[in-house]
């Protein structure tokens, strides 16, 4: 309701013949090399429009004019830091909020073998899923492996046997391009004693029905019990039936994945 009311009020107040419309500012340009980092990552914001200021937060809260004004590039060191930024200026409605979550490197991964991706979206070679590159919501960036199939298998080998607490997977959501997060993720670890894969945990994801902007979305899945291993197997089930409201309803969605972290 609130969403409907604002444009209505705006048009009543500002669009009635003796005044021109009140316009909204565009979102600021948010730039960074990659959302995945080893020690730190630098994010910069740009908005070259006199009379405006960029406000930002690093705690996940929606930026207001009481928050910090952006003046210089921001260094991020803490994992899962979410930067949100928004532009305010006199005579204009504030911009939409832009955001990015920065994700720190985890346990050292020796190799990853995955189901062959669609030939159009081969990513960036064998290390695509653990190269600390990506987290940019653009399907044409070379960081994503793209799949359109029933299931995707990913086999991970760590440097050495060690305790594993959680697994993070980063996906693209670009509904206009039929790219959705998966519907199910199942993670197995190799149990040396039993000489077979045991389930570590699984997660089912409900397709978002009102996601507007393209974004990178991560899933952090914790181990159900104590796990000590050097091998993981992940089975990802892409969304098999696009929701009702989408032009592609009922069809198989695309799955785009760009990074995996083990903690």
């Amino acid at each position: 309701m609130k969403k409907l009311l604002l444009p209505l009020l705006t048009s009543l107040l500002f669009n009635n013949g003796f005044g021109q419309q009140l316009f909204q500012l565009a979102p600021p340009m948010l730039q960074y090399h990659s959302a995945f980092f080893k020690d730190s990552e630098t994010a910069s914001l740009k908005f070259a429009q006199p009379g405006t200021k960029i406000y930002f937060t690093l705690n996940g809260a929606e930026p207001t004019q009481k928050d910090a004004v952006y003046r210089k590039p921001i260094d991020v060191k803490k994992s899962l830091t979410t930067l949100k930024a928004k532009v305010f200026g006199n005579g204009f409605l504030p911009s939409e909020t832009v955001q990015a979550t920065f994700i720190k490197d985890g346990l050292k991964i020796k190799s990853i073998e995955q189901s062959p991706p669609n030939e159009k979206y081969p990513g960036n070679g064998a290390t695509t899923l653990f190269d600390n590159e990506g987290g940019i919501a653009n399907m044409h960036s070379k960081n994503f492996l793209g799949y359109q199939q029933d299931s995707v298998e990913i086999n991970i080998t760590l440097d050495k046997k060690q305790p594993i607490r959680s697994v993070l997977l980063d996906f693209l959501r670009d509904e206009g391009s039929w790219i959705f997060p998966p519907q199910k993720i199942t993670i197995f670890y190799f149990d040396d004693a039993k000489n077979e894969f045991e389930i570590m945990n699984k997660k089912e994801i409900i397709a978002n029905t009102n996601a507007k902007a393209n974004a990178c979305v991560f899933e952090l899945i914790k181990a159900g019990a104590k796990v000590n291993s050097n091998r993981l197997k992940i089975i990802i089930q892409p969304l098999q039936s696009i929701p009702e409201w989408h032009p592609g309803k009922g069809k198989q969605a695309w799955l785009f994945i760009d990074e995996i972290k083990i903690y």
Partner: protein
Amino acid sequence: MERRNFLRNTSLAMAALMIKPPIPMKEDTVLGQGNRRYKLDNHWSHADVAKYPVNDCHEMIQDSKGRILLLTNETHNNVLIYDKKGKILESWGHEYPGAHGLTLFDENGTEVLFICDNSRHQVIKTTIDGRVLMTLDYPKETGQYTKPEEYIPTETAITPTGDIYVADGYGKDFVIHYDASGRYLGYFGGRGPQEKHLLNAHGICLDFRDNKQPNLIVTSRQQNAFKRYTLEGEYINTIALPGAWVCRPVIKGDYLYSAVLQTNSRQGDHSGFVTILDKNYKVVSNLAGSVPNYVDGKLDEMYQTIKCFSYPHDVCIDDEENLYIAQWNSGKVYPYKLSPVI
């Protein structure tokens, strides 16, 4: 308005304000930088939507009578003719479902139009009131085309002697050259890896600002650039416009104007603006876009800053330096007018 009237109206307005609850008055929206700043009027058109509907508003020109002609792919009235105040004077055209490119040419004192039709795969020359004078079909003479569907012309440029250049901007990105009678003379451009090649050759114009060496400016929209060629089709150089999906170049006086359909950073998200370049092909003003910034001669990526345009598609500059902005896929909006701020 006489000063006395002005005062009286002001006091009436003040009185009205005192009686009514205060209504937030919006100041004019001023766009652009430097000596290329404009006041926006997004209610310029007085067209009755029931009588004069539009679909995509693709291109606009001003004729010698001062009238503003709009080309739309709405076959109820492909051409709407306005006065400068936004009043519809007349309309014509039902047979251009893919109406896209509109160029005016003064042919020995008589003005004629060249329409590029995406759906008909043709270029059509008409009188100013719509009588067909000539039709150019797909250019099989080039050896590059096997059927009409491969040819989707978007723009024409006409030399003072009547030679016609057609940009196949949604087809194979060649520029095809004809003489005034429509006789094929040659082609250049097309897709490829070299600087001389084009990708989405959406617009073309003639640049006579250096009268010693007139040249052609062709849009390479997906490469975010204009490319310059001699009239013989020899590549000269590229004008990089990082981030900007420039439509056709339009030259008036010392300046080059172009609608930027959208920006790289926000594709598919109504992120257009209007850019203005000086005689040296340097961006001097972005209307609803970022302040142009050059570092060591290199232009920073450009982007939208104010969401007042969705997908602007063409700029028309009238005899009083006002701008008219036609928009594609923007909710069937009529053109906006921008007046210079002095």
